[in-house]
Structures are given as structure tokens and as C-alpha cells.
């Protein structure tokens, strides 16, 4: 576990050097990856750890984005309040929708999550007065970084960055904190109860686990963190649009989770990195990105069912074993 923590710190530290080392474009990509990593990891709490496949996780991402967007743009609320509000509101919606969803199992559960997500999308699409309807809400303001710039007078290494780069740093800190919290949850007794549900819900019930209540709690936690990711994404994207809650977003985040490997904590973040990077690379060669994505998924499902993280893990195990033999 120590080595896991060390790795996390190394990755976090090197991520801070992206704006200084790379171009603006790389900072943009890195920011995208970091936010999606949080979104995908929140989904994995359901898919990988509880065994619940949600097809409508984008609903909470969208709700979070609209919450932060509306609060900051329409109401002029500072980011410091508008950001946690995204998690809170998304979590509340997850509580209401989840109440119904956890009463169903497997494919029926998945279909109901999708249905609720489409309702959220439809409301965002039509409710012109509040959400801006089809046009969405452009020009969400950045949080104010005046304080940081004032501090740069004493700490010169803080100065000289653009607002978008400050926002990237802020995203890094917040996402790192959220991922740390999620990893604590996964490694807690509560997390273990969720795994028993994934492994064998009938048996879990008979060691005294109130399966529905635990599933609902997992749904709310996952929804809240997806909301936080959405809140960041609206600002990063310079606008919030109804398609944040559309089913294609739900499938995208599900693909990331599967690609990265749902069996591990780090898997979905890896999936976010690989998918976004591949997308950028391939789009510059061909317009048939969905075709390439499809091929990747087929290879993945047949050759590496554990995703990237699963493949790396089993390769490492094989290497260790062959070392022992030699």
C-alpha cells in the first residue's frame, strides 16, 4: 500500500509540471483527462466494486455541471460554494433516483438508470429559463485566482500562469482530494460490504448486509463524485450543455472504466487517459474515430477482459513468477 501511495504522489507531482513543460494544448488535454478520471472512478464504485452497471451515470455529471454553472453564472456564487454544491445536488438526485433503481437488479437496474438520465437530459434540453435549453449555458466564469496572483508576489513560482493553467492546478488538487477520499471509501469496511454484494448478494444478505440500503448508499456516493467532476467540467469546457447528461456520455464513461479495468482502483483513470489521448491522436489521422474505438473495444473484450490495469497486473505477476523460477 505504501508503494501505491508513493506512485500517486509521483503522478500528482509530475502532473503539476505539465503547463511548464508542455504546450497549452497538453495542459488542455491533461485537464480533460483529470476530470474524466474522477468521473470514471466514481462510476467504478458502482460497476467494479458493487457490481451494479449504471447506464445513466452522466445524469449526475450533468446535474453537477448545471449546479455549478447556474450558481456561478446566474447567481454569482463563488466557486468555493458552487463546487461542493455540485456534489450535494447530484448526490440528492442520486438518492431519489437510486431509491427506485436499487429495487431492480441487473439489466432492469441498468435500464432504469438510463431512463432517469434521459429524463434529466430532456429537462436540461427544454427548460430554457434555467438551463438555457438547447443552447446550453455558455461562458461559465472561471473561479477568481486574484488571491493566488497576490501570493505570487512572495512566492514567485506561483506567478506567470494563465487563468486556464491556474484552473488546471485547482482541478489537480481537487480531483486528487476526491480520489483520495474515494480510495479510502473503497478500502473501508463499507467498501468491503459493497464487495460482498458484488460477489454474492444472496449470501451478503445473510451475513446481515441490508443489500438495498448499501447499494443506495454506493449510488449516492458515486453520484455525488460524478457531480463534482461535472462541476469542474462545466468550467473547464467554458459552458454547460444538455449533452453532458446524454446517454452517449454515460456510455463513454462506461467504456473508459472497462478499458482501464474495473477490477482496480486506478483502472478507470488509466482508461480516461488512454481513451482521450487515443481520440486526439487518431482524429488527427482519420475521421473514423468511432470505428477505431469499436476495434479497440473488441480486442479489449476478447484479449484483456480485465482492462489495461488487469493486463498490466497479470503481466507483472507472470514476470515475477518467471524470475522466481530462474
Amino acid at each position: 500500500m505504501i508503494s501505491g501511495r508513493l506512485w500517486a504522489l509521483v503522478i500528482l507531482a509530475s502532473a503539476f509540471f505539465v503547463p511548464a513543460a508542455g504546450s497549452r494544448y497538453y495542459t488542455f488535454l491533461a485537464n480533460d483527462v483529470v476530470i474524466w478520471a474522477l468521473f470514471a472512478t466514481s462510476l467504478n464504485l458502482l460497476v467494479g466494486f458493487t457490481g451494479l452497471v449504471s447506464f445513466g451515470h452522466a445524469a449526475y455529471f450533468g446535474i453537477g455541471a448545471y449546479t455549478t454553472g447556474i450558481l456561478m453564472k446566474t447567481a454569482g456564487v463563488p466557486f468555493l460554494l458552487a463546487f461542493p454544491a455540485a456534489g450535494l445536488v447530484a448526490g440528492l438526485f442520486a438518492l431519489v433516483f437510486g431509491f427506485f433503481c436499487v429495487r431492480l437488479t441487473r439489466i432492469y437496474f441498468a435500464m432504469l438508470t438510463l431512463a432517469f438520465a434521459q429524463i434529466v437530459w430532456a429537462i436540461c434540453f427544454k427548460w430554457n429559463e434555467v438551463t438555457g435549453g438547447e443552447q446550453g449555458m455558455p461562458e461559465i466564469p472561471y473561479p477568481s485566482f486574484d488571491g493566488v496572483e497576490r501570493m505570487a508576489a512572495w512566492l514567485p513560482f506561483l506567478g506567470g500562469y494563465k487563468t486556464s493553467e491556474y484552473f488546471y492546478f485547482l482541478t489537480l488538487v481537487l480531483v486528487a482530494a476526491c480520489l483520495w477520499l474515494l480510495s479510502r471509501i473503497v478500502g473501508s469496511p463499507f467498501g468491503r460490504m459493497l464487495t460482498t454484494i458484488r460477489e454474492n448478494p444472496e449470501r451478503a444478505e445473510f451475513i446481515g448486509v441490508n443489500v438495498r440500503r448499501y447499494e443506495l448508499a454506493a449510488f449516492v456516493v458515486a453520484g455525488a463524485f460524478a457531480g463534482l467532476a461535472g462541476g469542474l467540467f462545466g468550467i473547464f469546457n467554458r459552458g454547460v450543455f444538455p449533452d453532458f447528461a446524454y446517454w452517449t456520455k454515460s456510455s463513454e464513461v462506461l467504456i473508459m472504466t472497462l478499458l482501464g479495468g474495473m477490477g482496480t482502483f486506478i483502472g478507470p483513470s488509466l482508461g480516461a487517459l488512454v481513451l482521450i489521448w487515443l481520440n486526439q491522436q487518431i482524429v488527427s489521422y482519420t475521421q473514423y474515430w468511432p470505428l477505431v474505438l469499436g476495434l479497440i473495444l473488441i480486442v479489449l473484450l476478447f484479449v484483456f477482459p480485465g482492462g489495461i490495469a488487469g493486463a498490466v497486473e497479470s503481466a507483472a505477476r507472470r514476470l515475477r513468477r518467471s524470475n522466481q523460477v530462474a
Partner: protein
Amino acid sequence: MLEVRELKKSFDGFQAVGGVSFSVPQGSISAIIGPNGAGKTTLFNLITGHLSPDAGSVTFKNREITGIAPHDLCRLGMGRSFQRTNIFPRLTVFQNIQAAFLCHRGRGWNLLAPVDRFYREDTQALLDSVGLLDKAGEVAGFLSHGNQKQLELGITLALEPEILLLDEPTAGMSAQETRESIHLIERIARERGLTLLFTEHDMEVVFAIAHRITVLHQGEVIADGTPEEVRAHAEVRRVYLGERR
């Protein structure tokens, strides 16, 4: 301790359990026997809340428990093992038992403390008493069938039950494994002062350890009494024991 009165259950018009009554006194070892399809597992599922009965009632420690959800029954002190082995296959042996401790002792809603810290000694002691201490780190799904049954018993014991319901505890075991696990179950029941109710198809096992035997045939009780009484019962000899000789 446990009272079953006039319990009935049908599936699509087929009567699986039709008006079954019996009682299990505290501290006793009782068995339910009967040919395949006699309704033993259905009866167990009715008692433990996995199915709700069409009619009748179940009382446990003078409390009506008909229709109570399994996770609540568990808290009242009823432990159950399953005929089809029922463990958490991708967790380690240690984690299987530890999960049961965590839940039973109300730690399941702790979201932030590292799980490894909890109940290490208790888990190890229990693994030792069911004979799995040397396999603590192994993935449960890879254990032999006999070991998985031991593990399942361990999970159930972690819930500190007063009554233990075992559905065919030796199903699928070799003669050797059967003998060992029956000794294990009997020893644990004695040590912990447990009341035991089990179903079993192996007659040798039943007559060796049971104080009372209830014989089920086509969903109905045809005999109920001590092993000697049941052995002498004419109808039992005809429908059940007779078939085997």
C-alpha cells in the same frame, strides 16, 4: 427455540410444502430428512425469510418471524448455511470471515477507516476453529469443495448465532470429508452451546448425531421423533428407508 406451525407454500399450483409443523428445542440437534423434492430446501427458505409462506407461521425465541427479511433474522441470532456452496469467491478466506464480523458488529457503515485493522484476532481464532488457518490468504473460490463448506460454516459462525440451520452440510463430499465435517459441526455446536437444525440425505450422519428427526415426504411430515422412533416407523421405512435397502 424454533416453532414452525402449519407452514404452506406452493409454486404455480404445485404444493412444495403443505402444512408442516415441528419444533426445535433449545440446545438440541434436529434433522429434517426426506427424499429429493420432499420440500426440505423450500422449508428452510421459508424459515429464513428467503421465501414468504402462503400460510402458517414461524416463531423464534417466542417471537413471530414470518416474513422478516434475512438480514434482520441474522441479527436476531439465526445463522444459515446453504446447500449450493455460498461464499464470496473472489475474496480471500480471511476476508470472507472478516466481512461477516464487520457486518454483524455494525461496522459496515464506517466509510473511512482502513478495513485491514478490524477483527484480526477474532477472524484468526475462528479460522483456526474451523480448520482453515493455514489457508487464510487463499482466494476462496479456489478452495476445494470441502474447504469451501468449512469456510461457509465459519462465515455463519462469525454471526454468533444461537441456532444454526445447515442445508445439506455434507452435500457433494466424499465419505472421508463427510465424517470430518460432521465431527467439526458437532464439536462446534457443543462448544458454543448451539441449537442445530439440518437437512441431510446421508442416513448414517443423521442417525449418528441427531436427537430428533422430522421426516418429510411430498411436502408433508410423515414422522417426527427420536432416531429410534423414526427408524421403527412403518411409513418411513416404506417411503424412504425402504427405498435404499
